[in-house]
């Protein structure tokens, strides 16, 4: 099964579970959790079901295309179901079966792994899902986002698409994966990984990044004042990515790290508060 078939299968499966199929968000994020289709929609009390592919950027994970499974951009398949159904674990298991995995021949484990994203004031309780020792999914009951306690509780299921595909194809290297019948991951991604690693680690201009960070944070604050919460949140996402770039340039000390993360979180928390205070019905 190629990666695009894997994606199509998951789309079909989760659409069958009543999920609306969103499209990837167009701002750089570190994880699917950060996109508005998850972040805003988990805050209120209304039911919500969504599934989507989200490219996720983590500049420090870049390896110039030389490491078989570490990349500065990978693809997540993100599912949010709120409230979490009582049989959601079985549904997740069914989704693996729907991919043709014969589970009785394998070892599927839910291994304690609580998740936390200090930048967006979010945490949850759950597991990393291991299939024959390979981590293929993070399964989390979301407890808090934007500093707000969530109720009803959403469940977040994040598949690591490359890893799952490695399992399905029985391969050891991301770059050998087949995206479609005749296009390989290498053709699509190798040059991107090499060039972005060079940029992330060596060439990103620290001074300009720092300036951009300051300007973007100011923009976020002023948008919050004007109650334009979605644009304000976009600015926070941009800040988070700028921070990640600065980090991969080694321009952030341990103390600064705590300070800057706290700064972004404060903005995000304000957005979440306001969003919950004056909910606009669409």
């Amino acid at each position, binding site marked *: 099964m190629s990666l695009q078939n894997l994606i199509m299968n998951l789309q079909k499966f989760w659409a069958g579970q009543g999920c609306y199929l969103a499209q990837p968000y167009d701002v750089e994020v570190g994880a699917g959790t950060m996109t508005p289709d998850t972040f805003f929609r988990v805050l209120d009390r209304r039911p919500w079901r969504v599934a989507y592919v989200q490219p996720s950027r983590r500049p420090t994970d870049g390896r110039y295309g030389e*490491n*078989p*499974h*570490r990349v500065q951009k990978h693809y997540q398949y993100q599912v949010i179901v709120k*409230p*979490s*159904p*009582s049989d959601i*674990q*079985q549904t997740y*298991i069914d989704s693996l079966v729907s991919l043709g995995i014969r*589970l*009785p*021949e*394998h*070892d*599927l*484990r*839910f*291994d*304690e792994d*609580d998740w936390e994203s200090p930048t967006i004031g979010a945490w*949850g*309780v759950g*597991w990393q899902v*291991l*299939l*024959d*020792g*390979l*981590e293929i999914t993070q399964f989390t*009951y979301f*407890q808090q986002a934007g500093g707000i306690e969530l*109720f*009803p*509780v959403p*469940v977040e299921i994040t598949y690591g698409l490359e890893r799952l595909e490695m*399992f399905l194809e*029985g391969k*050891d290297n991301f770059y050998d994966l087949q995206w479609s019948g005749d296009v390989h991951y290498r053709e699509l991604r190798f040059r991107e990984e090499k060039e972005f690693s060079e940029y992330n680690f060596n060439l990103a201009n620290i001074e300009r990044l720092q300036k951009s960070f300051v300007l973007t944070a100011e923009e976020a604050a002023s948008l919050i004042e004007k109650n334009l919460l979605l644009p304000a949140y976009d600015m926070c996402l941009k800040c988070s990515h700028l921070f990640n770039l600065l980090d991969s340039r080694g321009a952030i*000390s*341990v*103390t600064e790290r*705590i300070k800057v993360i706290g700064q972004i979180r404060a903005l995000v928390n304000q957005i979440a508060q306001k969003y919950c205070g004056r909910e606009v019905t669409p």
Partner: protein
Amino acid sequence: MELLLEINTEEMPSSHIKAGLDQIKEKLAAELSASHVAVLSLETYGTSRRMVVVGDFAPQQENKEEIVVGPPKTVAFSADGSPTAAAKGFAKAQNVEVEKLQIFQTPKGEYLGLKKVIKGKPTREILTSVLPAIITALSFPKMMRWGACNLRFSRPIKHILCLFGGETLSFSIDQIKSDNFTTGHKIHSPQKFRVRSFLEYKTLLKKNKVIVSEGERKKLILDRIEKRLQPLKAKLYPDEELLDKLAHDVEYPYVLLGTFPQEYLKLPIEVLSVAMREGQKLFSVVQDNKQLPCFLGVADTPKDPKSLIRKGNERVLKARLEDAKFFWEQDLKMPLSQRAAGLKQVIFQEKLGSYEAKTARLKSIVGYLCDKIDEKKLKKDAVQAAELCKVDLLTEMVREFPSLQGKVGGLYAKAEGYPATVVQAIYEHYQPVSLEDNSPASLAGALVSLADKLDSVVGAVGIGLQVSGSSDPFGIRRNANGICKVILDRKLVFSFGHLLEKAISVYESTLERPREGIVASCQTFFEQRLRYIYEMQGYRYDLVNAALGAGLDNIYYSALRLKALGILKKSPHFEPLILMAKRVNNILRGLPSYKVNADLFAEKEERELFSTFTIIKENVSPLIANGDFAKAQNIIFKMQSPLTSFFDRILVMAEDKKTRQNRLALLQAISELLLQVADYSQVVVEGEK
């Protein structure tokens, strides 16, 4: 009658299962005893997906007898002995014949009354109200909610099975209704099945690929590991914690033996075993302490017929080892001494500065310690270890496997050809991480460990960080325990007060609190830690007080004092010596100190006491200085006889001021000498109030 309760959950962490089961057991036993229900047995079992309670209880509460008191005998019967209207009325009100009534002796006299037997409530009824209350009140180290449930629990509850006497015991917890069925293994046998007893439950579960007893699973894992390893003549790299985790995590253990390419054997065993343990939870396999190119894993399945599980794990492990090898080779490209410059960038604590500053302090403290314990030869190596011990924080390997900090530094130092003393000291300087952990095996390692931990404690205390209850954010308590343990294990003799001063002075102006405040806080804190450690060792609190009361400056000596007191406690000298010391102390209470004038002693008994004391002091002082408190104690005991005569014959509080003060001065000198061994006045002797 048998109770069977199974709380079926999504995978719970092992510590939560244990905490949950202990609470259920304790609370259930307490509730039943409060309700007068006899408990014949009460046991718990668990897997990561089920908390199971099995009990054998009386079917109902014990019956209670109650006496209902009616009218006085004089009112209830007329002169001829026949019941009056009052008696008849009472009988009617109680719904019995008058003949059933009896006369009872009460404090107010004889009364007519009725003995009633109140039948106990059925246990089923009690359990129906008690169990849901216990389950909803369980507390776990970290709680969560799910769905639209208001309940907070460890992980979502999927289902509850509850039987009493083979019949469903019905109750509801937040939309979950108890029932009489359970389910098997989540992959191999997920279907529902009905059960009527624990025996049936256990048997059917096993058929459905779940072994409910943790002990049985653990034994199975060990047996199968043994079977796998025997042909290889190899052993498991011991990891009790991992074994417990796996015995808990799987419902039906299968042990697999996999291999990895020889080329990764270049990596040290520490790195290999951590790469295996973290992530995939695999055991490494050794032969004569050498790593073999294979691993053992525990899967949650009855079998691996196509070896897919083994091959999958081999593939993932190879990728991890490839990473580790990459880190190892990358890290070795830059020598530690050169890498050390980067410590400036790593913050030790926001207010306490970088690891570069910490390293400078450690060098100074370690050098000081070497001088104080007279280990001049060791100084060069120990200081070099201090200089390099934190550098591995900058390596890729420690960034990937933080639990290897220290060890990785030692391994790189070894690869670079540093002296064995330096290598070992770096390697083990984080030890002991708890009171159960071993102290460093080398003296240099112990000194670096001591300096590192003391620097952290003094720094934290110096900026006002505090330990409270279970919260110990900066590891102050853990570090202080480590310091005490190292000093006691290595029998290090030095002035702790002076060391504290040194540790404070190397911070220069970094610390916010004044020096005296830090010293006082540290002294109190260390006294508490020692008290805790000694009481854990089984010493009685009053002996601990007596040992610590003689001073803390020499921590190792406080342990020797305590040991001497322990010996004394078992000897016939114990009571007389304690009473003698108390008698001396009592008379001196609240007095200013005086000076002895030998010429003023006129009476025989006081001259004798003075000369015995002078001789004893001369003999005992070197013993005290060397920490031989048991021997010192024996010699001091020889003062008992002259002291008794002194108290019998001499009036201490003599009218003449000079005589009186001189006698008191002698007793003060004796008291001072005693206090150099222990503060005997803190010891409690039998019969004393």
